[in-house]
């Protein structure tokens, strides 16, 4: 069994002794490129990492003038005025957080319901078509959601929801304060609902994947002792995937925070602090999308880039938390 390769031991192996020099010493063709290829792959991976680092550095450098000039007031002031060169970002920051949380509030129960339906109740014939349909909802570009929101959803919403609520509100009540606003359909709540429709399929798909990781044996044993579907989901499925499920929710939140086009169409784009559900507002992303290409002065650009950095820090925190909670069980 002397099959040791030549040159390893220093002794001449018995079997290879008769082989001609050229065969014994032949190294595999192209072996010289092995380290080169490895280096290329390493370079590509490093490039992705440095892209993320580059985003932080670029936003920091670009936004620095605004941070230096306005200091902490940049985060607390609601005055955003390109004419007088005063920039306070409290309005867009609040708009971003409010719309994202409202959309989560609406989308989460529905996404949960869809995921449970697909894993527990759906007839197997319908399982694939409905699953695909929900995923298709995730594939529709955000600009199409924006157009649909602007031309179809917002007018209908203003006519059938906003106006009746406005008219029915008793003067001077809290109700009136909450629903105050121009009934044109372009407001914080419309934007949140459009966002909810957008993040719903992502969360539903991720939750469904998570529910499928629960071993059937565990679920079936719960059914076996007579638990109802509600009890199975509540006391077996959910506890099993709790950690990852929170991650899935954070992932949806991350998308809602950074969504640009759909929101830009329906939020009304005013810079003040939103003071009711039906007042128009803005988010960080919509402000940048609307103003950056026509920024009137270097300070205006700097303020917008500074806004971008704020958005980056918020989403990075949320997404990092989401990924950490989800571990490797994450969707693309």
């Amino acid at each position, binding site marked *: 069994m002397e099959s040791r390769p030549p040159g390893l031991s220093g002794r001449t192996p018995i079997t290879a002794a008769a082989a001609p020099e050229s065969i014994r010493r032949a190294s595999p063709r*192209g072996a010289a*490129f*092995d380290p080169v*290829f*490895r280096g290329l*792959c*390493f*370079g*590509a*991976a*490093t*490039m*992705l990492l440095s*892209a*993320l680092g*580059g*985003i932080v550095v*670029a936003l920091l450098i*670009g936004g620095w003038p605004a941070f230096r000039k306005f200091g902490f007031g940049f985060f607390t002031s609601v005055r955003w005025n390109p004419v007088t060169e005063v920039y306070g970002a409290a309005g867009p920051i609040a708009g971003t957080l409010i719309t994202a949380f409202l959309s989560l509030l609406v989308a989460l129960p*529905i996404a949960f*319901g*869809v995921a449970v*339906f697909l894993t*527990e*109740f759906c007839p197997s014939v319908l399982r694939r078509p409905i699953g695909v349909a929900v*995923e298709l*909802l995730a*594939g*529709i*570009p*955000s*600009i*199409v*959601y924006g*157009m649909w929101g*602007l*031309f179809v959803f917002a007018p209908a919403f203003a006519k059938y929801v906003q106006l009746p609520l406005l008219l029915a509100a008793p003067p001077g009540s809290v109700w009136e304060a909450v629903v105050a606003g121009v009934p044109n359909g372009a407001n914080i709540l419309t934007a949140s609902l459009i966002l909810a429709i957008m993040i719903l*399929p992502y969360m539903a798909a991720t939750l469904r994947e998570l529910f499928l990781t629960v071993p059937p044996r565990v679920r079936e044993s719960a059914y076996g002792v007579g638990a*109802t*579907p*509600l*009890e199975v989901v509540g006391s077996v499925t959910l506890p099993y995937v709790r950690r990852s499920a929170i991650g899935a929710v954070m*992932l949806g939140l*991350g998308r809602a*925070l950074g969504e*640009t*086009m759909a929101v830009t*169409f329906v939020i009304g784009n005013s810079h003040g602090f939103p003071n009711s559900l039906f007042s128009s507002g803005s988010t960080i*992303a919509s402000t940048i999308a609307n103003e*950056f*290409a026509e920024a009137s002065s270097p300070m205006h650009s700097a303020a917008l*880039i500074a806004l*971008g950095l704020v*958005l*980056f820090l918020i*989403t*990075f925190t949320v997404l*990092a938390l989401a*990924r950490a909670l989800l571990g490797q069980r994450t969707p*693309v």
Partner: protein
Amino acid sequence: MIFDRRGRRSIKAGLFVAFCIGSTAIALTALAAILMSLLVEGIGGLNLQVFTHSTPAPGSEGGLANAIVGSLMMCATAMLGAVVVGVLAGTWLAEYSADSHYAKVVRFMNDVLLSAPSILIGLFVYELVVAPTHGFSGWAGALALALLAAPVVTRTTEDVLKLQARTLRESGVALGAPLWTTIRQILWRAAGGGIITGALLAFARISGETAPLLFTSLGNQFFSLDMGQPIASLPGVIFNFALSAYDDWRRLAWVGAVLITAAVLAVNIFVRVLSREPRRS
């Protein structure tokens, strides 16, 4: 007493089932409503002129040819770059990294980049390319799109390579092939279907992206094949035309929305049909 409790439990369970069915109905209704409006508003304006004429001045006849060509050029360039970088990076993560700390950092940051707001990618490319060269260009737009697509390709490449059997790698080593030959000739071939799926999904994603193009490729009213100049894109034209006050521009925006949705959904459905067959591995 026992009957009461059982009754309450089954009522609760019934309500829960109803809630889940209702949720699914809401999601499906949303999809149907959006597709419906696209059909009603957009299909009527769909004709040959859309593909042969460039975007018009308000009140005159025109199409979307410049935007379609511009979008295709930028997406194709972006995908070329993204596939090269993504496949190599995914290969490094799956084959070479040996789960080092550095690999964990790269993987984590890639996942974050995967869902980072696309408008920030646009800002980054503006700072990196557009501001220093004092010019919006198709190249800048393509770079922004590539940055969005590369993480998707990286992630799917790593995932499908990790699915490949260990014996495949051993067979390459047994033949005396260098590692990079083994990867190219055996692993990439075995994982080819999965990598293509990932690339198609990335393509579907970037073809509808608007935000990163607003201040990189800017847009162009005229037909242009010059990637060094501002160039029109389909999502960009939809954005501008939909928010305009002109009816004929809005009609064209709907037509554009139909085209883009149809393309994206077609790719998505195609991928699902493709991946339904058992993967070669």
